[in-house]
């Protein structure tokens, strides 16, 4: 089991959350969790609870903002969306990630 599931690298969760919210629709925490799992074809297995410290960290930085609303099954839920600042950060972080992963790939390929 564990061999097919990858633990998240430190800090990448932020990037994944930004990516998920980048699509545009406001999403609640559970939605974000489900979407990440779907997009990674269940390759990334994360404790869903770990999303919340990350969501709140991002909100405190002003990269995302939240609003209480009504969920698809008519319950009260908190919805998150990306801010302008977050959009800019997402671009930066994506770029850095690309640099980083290319570099790592290159090293590994060389090996």
């Amino acid at each position, binding site marked *: 089991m564990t061999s097919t599931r990858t633990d998240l690298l430190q800090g990448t969760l932020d990037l994944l959350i930004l990516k998920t919210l980048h699509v545009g629709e406001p999403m*609640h*925490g*559970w939605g974000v*969790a*489900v979407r990440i799992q779907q997009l990674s074809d269940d390759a990334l297995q994360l*404790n*869903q*609870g*770990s999303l*919340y*410290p990350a969501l*709140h*960290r991002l*909100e*405190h*930085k*002003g*990269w995302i*903002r939240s609003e209480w609303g009504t*969920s698809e*099954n008519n*319950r*009260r*839920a*908190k919805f998150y969306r990306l*801010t*302008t*600042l*977050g959009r*800019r950060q997402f671009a930066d972080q994506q770029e850095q990630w690309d640099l980083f992963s290319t570099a790592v790939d290159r090293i590994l390929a060389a090996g």
Partner: protein
Amino acid sequence: MIDALIDRLRALRLRVMTTLRPERAWSDLDEEMRFHIQMEADRLKREGFSPKDARRRAMIRFGGVHRYQVQTREVRGTQLGEDTMQDIKYAFRMILKNPGFSAVAILTLALGIGANASIYTVVEAVLLEPLPFHEPDALTLLWTKNDEQNQEKYMVSPMDFDDWRQMNATFESMAGFWPTTGTVTEVEGNPTRVRVVYTTENFFSLLGAAQVLGRTFASDDGPGSAIVAVLSHGFWQRRFGGDPAIVGQTLTLDGNPIEIIGVLRAEHALPDGTDVWLNMTWTMQIQSRYARWMSAIGRLKPDQELSAARADMIGVAARVEQENPDSNRGWTVTVQSLHAEMVGDTRTALLVLLGATGLILLIACANVANLLLSRSEVRAKEMAVRVAFGAGRGRLVRQLVTESLLLAGFGAALGLGIAHLGVRALLGLAPTTLPAATDITLDGTVLGVVASVSLLTGILFGLAPIARLLRSEVHSTIRDGARSTVGAKGHRVQNAFVVAQFAMALMLVVGAGLLVQSFENLRKIDAGFTSAGVVTVELDLSQAVAPSDMEVIDFYEQFERRIAELPGVLAVGDASTLPLGTELDYEQTIHFVDREIDRELDPRAYLRPISPGFFAAMRTPIVAGRDFTSADRVDAPGVVLINEAFANQFFTNEDPVGEKIGDMRMRFGPLGAIHVTGAISESEIVGVVSDIKYAGLRSDARPALYFSGLQSSVRRRTIAIRSASASGPLVSAVRQELAAMNPTVALTDIQTLDEVMAGAQSRDRFSTLLLSLFGIVALLLASVGVYGVLSYAVAQRRGEVGIRMALGADAGAVRAMVLGDGARLVFTGIGVGLVAAAALSGLLSSQLFGVNPREPMIYAGVTITLIVVGLVASYVPAWRATRVSPVTAMRAE
């Protein structure tokens, strides 16, 4: 851009809200997590799990609610805290890394904050603090005024006062009061002299003054009622130990039993220092219009201005004058706000001090700004490197602000200490005439304002490295930074600061120099007597002790004879008024029996009864004729001595001895405080005595007549005792003699003449000392300023200096170069300062005695001092520049 800013602000609000109302944030988080697990469980149920199983699996996938709650809480709030801790740690490291820089910055700020907060506290307490009464701005004092007689603020007669309060249209109410003294005794004697004030029954209600016990005067305590007493808080504490059952007890004042009806609140004591207030039980109309002895206070109607009240009262006085042309000719009214009157001439002195501290604060801020700017040269490099390594600019700003705040915080803390000591020191040095001096404590608002100004300076200039960074490209800063070229603009600002510092320091030192010179002049003034070795004591004989005028004269004569026989006593004599004292000096119109006084001369003189031994005790020389002797008694012909001012005024080239002064028995107040006994109708001038200063050291002596104390019945006198022995044992011996004569008479106001002299100089000593202190501080700060700027310039030009020296420039030339830079700044500053000082020193003129505010010698002396200080401060960095080894300097490139 704007959107991003709004996002930041929103995040900030969120952080603040989470901090302020955490419970709300946590309940939101609970709800959010519950929702999540519910959704997950629902999904699992749809996939076919039993409800119980679905819930269990949802919980497992969530990974522990509590754990993530804790983690989330840590995110909230502490993100900011963690960064701050990091900043503080880093700032501490930076401060410790540059101990010299840090110490100078902290000390500078501390001095600036401390000096300003303490001075401003005193100034505010005295000048700006409202009086503790109900709507104090409406309170005014009223006097009579007579230009012919040169009286600006004279007492009012009760009859005139009665007319004023009936006829005016601008005052809500007016009250009369009469400060005098009395002696309080108990069954077993124990006499105490007290300050008594008789007031009209509306006095306290007019002020809005309140009692701590009992009551104050009511409307039925007016004319015809029984006399009752209100005690001051201090007197109640001192004399009765704060006895809570004091109301209803009896006070024995001058032998009369008076019921105590209340105790006044401490801060409501008016006039200051009063012990007992008594109601005036007589009607105003029984008095003569000539007898002007009462003081008056009024409360303006709510919508009335002081100027309107003046116009109104001048009109009232004119009508009273019309109806009473004899008694009121030339008499009009002076109206002044109570506050302005109480602050009095302290105002200028304090404003000068305030201005001086303002300059100190400016110098201190300039210094801190300069230090920070100098450092920004170095820091710009560091900042650029950190940006290159990915530090956010916002984060850097925060870190710099933290550093500045930490520096400023240390400075402020130290400043607080200095301010505390400062206020205490100021009050210790303060002249006793400083109003309300005892109530002054460090003012929090003042401290806050001053500290904020200093902090702001620190923060503003602490950000200079960032400003630099935002202007420039990171890459070029790093590249150029290695070579430490100095932005010309940055240097211009710093140079301007040094110039300004020297200019301000020069102004302060010139001010101090002028005051020191003035104080020297003041000390050299001949007050007309020799103060060393003289003790003075005061007595007041009540009607109970000495019912008749003759008994008063006998009492003093006998008492002084007893004192004269004490061991060590060289001379003894009494006087109604002590020189340089604050007691009333009586001035009256005079006429000669055998000659006319020139109309242009002011025919008035001060009248002062003194006993035969007084001038001997004071060592005031008799310049012509003779002194009084024990033969100049009531049954002998009337005799007077005149002072030199009198002789010069009325006898230009003639001998005054032998001339006669006409009848001038004096009547003051309802008790007839001073008069020459009735049998004497004219008095011969028997001698001329050297001038004595009565109204302060700065004032010229005015014409005065001295009566023989053996021919006058003044009940309250000051006895001057010149003695070769120490004052302590002497006073107790004098006390014993008095007790042997009459145990109910109190000995008061015991002081040496040296103390009286010191008191007369105290205000000048105070301002001189303070301004000198400021001058020194300013000089110190300014030299630190020029030293700092030159040091940094030298450090930055190390490479250049190294090359020059490698190429053969000799050390002298390099030193001259650096010194030249310093000298340019110092000279420019001095030039600016000289102009400013010459322009502003006029403001000091009221504080100066016998000194021209533009005295060239002082300006020259100060200029030389500043040049020396400036060049010494410049020489150190210049010397250091030549110590640079060319090799090291160039390797540093």
